[in-house]
């Protein structure tokens, strides 16, 4: 078959190059190939494993990070596309030992069990609040529905986000 032969011939090997990412206020200079996703760049090359890989297809939300304050799936974008961007991961939310209000609320409400989707949930909630559209619990449920929690902590996640949203209401 013609197609099978095409698949079997390797593309020219892609040499790694230098990518400079600004992550949590720090510049990370990484030598990575252009086909490296932002998610793999963070987890493996920058050793920031707080951002999780749950599907690698933009279907679960575990890899949610903030790029210039907007929540995105880090698995659906390449690291080289983010040279000038401010990236915030779960490791960058706390201020030293002082947790971000959402982190505190997640612990207080027991808004997780295994903890694997949690960094994505929290980053997603920060992004949701930045967007400013969510007003009610129903809005939060809808707006947080890109983040799967297999342990089923949803009611507690919504409680935690609502508590912080209400406290921060102007």
């Amino acid at each position: 078959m013609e197609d099978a032969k095409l698949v079997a011939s390797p593309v020219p090997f892609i040499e790694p190059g230098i990518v400079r990412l600004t992550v949590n206020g720090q510049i990370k200079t990484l030598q990575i190939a252009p086909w490296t996703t932002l998610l793999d760049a963070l987890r493996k090359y920058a050793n920031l494993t707080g951002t999780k890989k749950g599907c690698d297809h933009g279907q679960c939300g575990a890899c949610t990070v903030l790029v210039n304050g907007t929540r995105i799936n880090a698995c659906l974008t390449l690291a080289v596309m983010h040279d000038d961007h401010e990236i915030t991961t779960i490791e960058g939310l706390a201020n030293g030992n002082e947790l971000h209000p959402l982190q505190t609320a997640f612990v207080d409400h027991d808004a997780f069990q295994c903890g694997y989707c949690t960094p994505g949930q929290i980053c997603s909630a920060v992004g949701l609040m930045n967007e400013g559209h969510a007003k009610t619990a129903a809005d939060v449920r809808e707006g947080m529905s890109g983040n799967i929690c297999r342990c089923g902590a949803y009611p507690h996640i919504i409680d935690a986000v609502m508590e912080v949203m209400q406290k921060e209401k102007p």
Partner: protein
Amino acid sequence: MTYIGQPVKRVDGNDKVTGKAKYAAEVNIPDLTYGYVVSGTITKGTILDIDEWTARAVPGVIEAFTHKNRPHTAWFDLNYKDQDAPPGSPFRPLQDAEVKYNGQPIALVVAETFEVARYAASLITVSYAEKPHETNLDDHLAEARDPKTGLATLLKPLPPKPCGNADAALAAAPVSIRTHHVHGPQHHNPMEMFGTTVDYGKEDKDGTPYLTIYDKTQGAPNSQLYMAQIFGLPFSHVRVISPYVGGGFGSGLRPQYQLFLAVMAAKALKRSVRVTLTRQQMFTFGHRPQTVQNVSLGATPDGTLTAVKHDATAATSQFEDYTEVVVNWTGMLYDVPDTTLAYKISPLDIYSPLDMRTPGGVTGGHAIETAMDALAYELGMDPVELRLKNYSEKDWTEDNKPFSSKELRECFRQGAERFGWSTRNAEPRSMRREHTLMGWGMATGIWDANCLPARAEAVLTVNGKLRVSSATADIGTGTYTIMTQIAADTLGMPIEDVIFKLGDTDMPLAPFQGGSFTAATVGSAVKQVCDDLGKKLFKLARKAPKSPFHDADWDEVNFVDGQMRLKKDPAVTMALIDIVALNGGRAVSETSTSLPNPLKTAKFSKHTHSAAFVEVEVDEDLGTVTVTRAVSAIAAGRILNPRTARSQIIGGMVWGISHALHEDSKMDHRYGRFMNQNLAEYHMPVAADIHNLDVIFVEEHDEIVNPLGVKGLGEIGVVAMPAAIANAVFHATGKRIYDLPITLDRVLY
């Protein structure tokens, strides 16, 4: 007691919300290589050839392993049996050219980077000689047979022999009901994909390496045993570490093939290796089996059950007889003299099924409890009344033993009251909310309250901190937190001074985490070892010069506020830190084994119970079903931590909703392959699907199950939900849907 029973916040909470918690594929070690698995694409047959030479040519590729060049492994099946292996011959990755199921791992490409490994894996070409396959249970129900028994059947008993004559009783019954249920297969899909990082350490004088293996598992000792047996490694050379597990739900009860492949590659290449599966590959091993059930119930007009028949046929693989307890629950809930329970399996060209949260319980529970609802309607009786009418004080499946405790009656009462059940109009289609139909349904749940042997170590350090450890797991259940509470209470210490560690084969042996038995099992070991450490401290204190405890006996002291005290005169104290100081500058440590007491427990049937009350809204135009609110009343003995316990039950209820309305692994039988092998098409609930969930813990004292009176919570939150939802859908629509999940096509047509 200060901490047990209190809503202590998760002690591992900070690590989880800050990203510090390290899961198996996150331990970044120097010179790590990356393995990528190539999955087979046929269901049955032989690999004629694998061409991996193009892959090898990619710069950065170190090796491509296939059945042709894999290193030698053990010969005998026994070596491949892990602690949760069903009877049969376990699957061996890369064993030979034979393909046994679709998605079978057929090659592993190892490269210097993940990206190169992934790319090179895509270049591998395979040719097969295909054989016809059989994957459809519907076509093979008639050939179903009795399962082989083995070690696994000890915890999962097959149904008892029939009693009386259920057929005759059924024929004679004035009122009867027959139901037929088909449940599709499901996949666990924990959020963390299976992954293993093998740190290739130094070699001993014989050249055998010390391997430190970070594995996603529900039992580090199980992974250790499996690897040591297969690769002929001494246990001392195989250390498995698993402090955090990104969800298990049963998928980590058996070692998965990425562990085998990672260790194989590390050993062969003398390099550290990480192998992680893709989400698609998460559909290429154990799953909840497809199951077909029939229930027949006979009753007198007053609702007394006179005949029970419940049979189940489940799919298994061609190589292992996986079984689960599906029908026995019926006999535990309803004690009817004329009862026949039956369970058979039918081997197909699929991978062996694997316990998935509430294995069998959620399957059989849905069948019997929807049948009971149908019977209630046939009788014109309230569904709660029908269950009270047939309330059983003894377990028919275990020679009519009494229950060690059973507060199910209270579950019905408190659950119904909280839900507002008494205002229900029993007439189907009688309740509406604006455009949508509304329905209320209820069901009973039951699960095991097992307790197994386990070991734990406790160390009181010279600076007065208590460190307790056991090689158990915390897959999100709260093990870290409740064990810390138990240890702190047993030695009367402030919780900040207590640390509990788990998930490391260097720690004392504990069973894998599963079956809702960890709280009872490891909790008993932690209590035991802290008691034993206390005795050691007491002996030290008594021997001290001018000891105030010189004449005291062990039962005359207790531990409060970091001190040992004389019970009769609490002013007589010694701080624990001062007692340790008597040990010549060394910590005081103890290792203990806790064993269940069969003399005490054998005369009883030990179970948790629940009642679920559910409200659904059904949009008749679209066929959509929404669970708008649900109440679960749980009787599960002593609740160690209401905060983490509530999360367990809420999570279980979400699983119940998912089981009833969402999850279904759809196979295209022409190809023998699951079609929806990704998280967009394998439907699981998201936040928008989950509404008002309420949990009641009914007070239940049980002195028999174990010294802590704990029964476990991992599964009981799930069991009653699917039937309660199905019954609510009937109440809303007047339509009985006995198959799961209740998707919109089933509602509409």
